[in-house]
């Protein structure tokens, strides 16, 4: 941190952890690293512990946390893909997130247990913990989180930062208009000098999940069947658009609806990641048709080229009143006039959906046609997909390893003295 000639470098790492809970996944890892250690689906499989493991399943690994006391009525929590993506009878998939914040605290506790035990592999009382939160996180949820960290996990220090602020930091800005296109929603949050303007933040429920639902509807209308991949025993190589020939696996009985839906959603998401693309300007059948199609093979073996559909799918992100451009304009115009030029000058796009090819270009273009002409518009997004998706986590990683940040933590002493009421003051 300090060089030979008294030079002071920016970083001082104190072994802090950064958690970035989202609707799609929880990102967790050590501060000052450039990617999270783990990116865990934000759902937990809850099922009976007493089941006969499948033949291919090697059981005794520790990825399973147990709870419940009465024998026979025990519930096990299956976390992370290796456990979760296994067909287990009676395993319900539940999420702990709701409306951008943690809602089911018992489940979230299980998730944190897993993080400390399997990802961090180090006692929680050694590591200050920095959490990201959505701008509209309610006060009870924030206080509950602080309480959990200090009282259950004995964290030496804790801090909460708005994810928009961190995304701006990750892009090297302290003032930015952050467009976060996540799974459950898209939001536009103005950030001034490292503070998010809460009352100017806007959001819409159009996000990655919506896109997956759209993809499902679209494939349904095209009469293309999305077979669950775990149900396929084998498939034959066939020609394009030919009827799929496959044999099905015998699955254990009692697979829950929620689990099947979850697995299918993953598949639709995969389809979107591979196929969906944002067109340069508002969707137009003819220009979209002139772009070469993209090939996709479904789990059953059926495969075909997708042409204009790819562009049509993503139009929902740029829709009149719920799309990202509108959100940006709404957020900017509810800011003070003095702040607007700076905000228009650095629009930052982040979140998983911002990885869709063409997203940033289209956003820039739409904004250019809407932004007041007296402002210089500049939009920006991290170059690599991982940096876009993990923007908030990376910002947290940077922040928690800056020397001058170390005075900001709420320490356990402070918590003991001041209680959780000080959260509002200390973590604005």
């Amino acid at each position: 941190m300090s060089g030979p000639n008294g030079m002071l470098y920016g970083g001082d790492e104190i072994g802090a952890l950064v958690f970035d809970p989202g609707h799609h996944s929880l990102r967790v890892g050590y501060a000052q690293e450039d990617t999270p250690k783990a990116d865990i689906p934000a759902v937990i499989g809850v099922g009976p512990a007493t089941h006969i493991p499948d033949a291919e399943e090697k059981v005794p690994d520790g990825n399973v946390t147990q709870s419940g006391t009465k024998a026979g009525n025990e519930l096990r929590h299956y976390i992370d893909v290796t456990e979760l993506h296994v067909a287990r009878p009676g395993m319900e998939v539940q999420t702990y997130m709701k409306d951008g914040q943690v809602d089911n605290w018992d489940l979230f506790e299980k998730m944190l247990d897993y993080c400390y035990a399997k990802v961090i592999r180090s006692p929680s009382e050694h590591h200050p913990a920095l959490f990201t939160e959505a701008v509209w996180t309610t006060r009870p949820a924030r206080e509950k989180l602080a309480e959990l960290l200090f009282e259950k996990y004995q964290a030496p220090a804790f801090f909460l930062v708005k994810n928009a602020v961190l995304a701006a930091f990750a892009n090297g800005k302290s003032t930015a208009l952050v467009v976060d296109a996540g799974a459950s929603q898209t939001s536009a949050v103005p950030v001034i000098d490292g503070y998010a303007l809460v009352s100017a933040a806007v959001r819409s429920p159009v996000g990655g999940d919506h896109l997956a639902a759209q993809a499902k509807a679209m494939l349904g209308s095209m009469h293309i069947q999305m077979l669950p991949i775990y149900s396929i025993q084998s498939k034959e190589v066939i020609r394009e658009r030919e009827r799929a020939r496959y044999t099905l696996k015998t699955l254990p009985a009692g697979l829950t609806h929620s689990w099947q839906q979850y697995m299918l959603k993953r598949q639709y998401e995969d389809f979107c990641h591979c196929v969906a693309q944002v067109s340069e300007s508002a969707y137009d059948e003819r220009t979209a048709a002139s772009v070469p199609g993209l090939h996709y093979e479904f789990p059953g073996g059926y495969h075909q080229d997708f042409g204009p559909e790819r562009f049509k799918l993503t139009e929902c992100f740029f829709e009149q009143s719920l799309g990202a451009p509108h959100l940006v304009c709404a957020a900017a115009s509810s800011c003070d006039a003095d702040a607007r030029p700076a905000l228009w000058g650095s629009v930052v796009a982040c979140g998983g959906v911002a990885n869709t090819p063409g997203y940033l270009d289209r956003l820039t273009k739409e904004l250019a046609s809407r932004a007041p002409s007296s402002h210089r518009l500049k939009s920006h997004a991290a170059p690599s997909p991982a940096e876009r998706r993990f923007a908030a986590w990376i910002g947290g990683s940077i922040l928690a390893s800056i020397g001058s940040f170390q005075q900001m933590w709420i320490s356990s002493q402070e918590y003991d003295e001041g209680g959780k009421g000080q959260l509002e003051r200390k973590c604005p």
Partner: protein
Amino acid sequence: MADILDILDIEHPGATEISRDSIIHGDKIKKKYVTAKAVKRPEGMHREVFALLYNDSNKDLPPLLPTDTGKAYKQTKAKLGMRKARKWVWAPFSNPARKDNAVFYHWKRASDETKEYPFAQFNKQVSIPSYTESEYNQYLKSEDWSQAETDHLMDMCQRFDLRFIVIHDRWDRAAFRDRSIEDLKERYYGICASLSKVKTNPWSNTVTTVNGEKRIYHYDAEHERKRKEQLRRLFDRTQEQIDEEQMLLTELKKIEARKRERERKTQDLQKLISRADSGNVPTVNPVPNNTEGTHTPSNATTNIARRHDRKLHKKKLSTQQRPVRTMEAVTVEWSGIKFPEARSTGVWLRSQRMKLPPGVGQRKTKAIEQELRQMNIDIAPTPTEAICKHFNELRSDLALALDLKNALVACEFDLQALRHQYEALNPGKTLTIPASICNATDGETKPMGEIIDVVGSPSALNSTI
């Protein structure tokens, strides 16, 4: 190997048995063969040219095989620091920037002495004025602000380091009414000002001492509000409004260009008129360089008065904002004829003085002659002194009259053109041209002075519109 040496014209080094030894010690063997005879630069050859010719292949052979014989690679062991690695330890530290003395751990060199946490120096805070309850009651009471609200404001100022945009965003709207940023700033700076009068507090950002004298920052809320409002309006313009404004701006530019053009023409006309005026004065002096001097005093004063008058007119004209589109096509040249000064030396015929100067064009000459003929005047009279003078004056006046006539016709034409234009744009309406400027019918019979007045005086211009 030998082949390459031949091609490169390198002296054959004799026994060229390739072995590890010969490769490794290659440079040593070669050393024996290096011919030391330096090629002399021929007399008169430039050094640069010689440098191009000079072949240094004997000195600095490029390696043909990758070898490890170079000095740098010869040392088998890298001479890295032979000192022991300095230890790093996971050491506790406390941060003086924290108020709670919490202990965190970080990596540091075991050898480094424990000093104050270096990043604590970045802990900078804005100093915000504080007040006691009695001070508040004495100096800061306000009808608009309760003490609770003021306290909240000061607290927010401290928390957000005077970032008023953020303060406004996080303002406790449940407990207090919504206030604009300007309201917040006004109150804050008002408090600073009142307190700095009674206290000597070092809240550096609002009070500066210039030459030992306290200067308090005065926040002009009204002005700021107006500025914000204007800014907001500027930003909230719709695309149509912006386009319209752009259109208006280009129109304005066009109008201004036209106005300049018109002024230029008015000036030209003025010149013509002034020429006509001085033509009316019976003693036109054909010698231009002493015109002023030969005027009678009364003439001089009237001339000055006129000029002054005209200047005023011109000013009025230029301040007129209305787009007057008259006289677009009128081009008025300098008119009248300046006859050359009588030559002072040598013998010359007086008829020379009657010769038109070369500046007068063919057409004008013809037109003047035509006029003269119509008046039954000989175009080449006997050049007595008196005839010479009068004949020249007459022709000068004729030239001026012709120019004015032309100008009048042009104006007349413009007027009619505009009338037609007006009637085309406003179908059904007719533009009645006031009689005072309507010369189309009886223009010829009007005396010259009146016509001039029509074109030149602003009152007439006003009446055209």
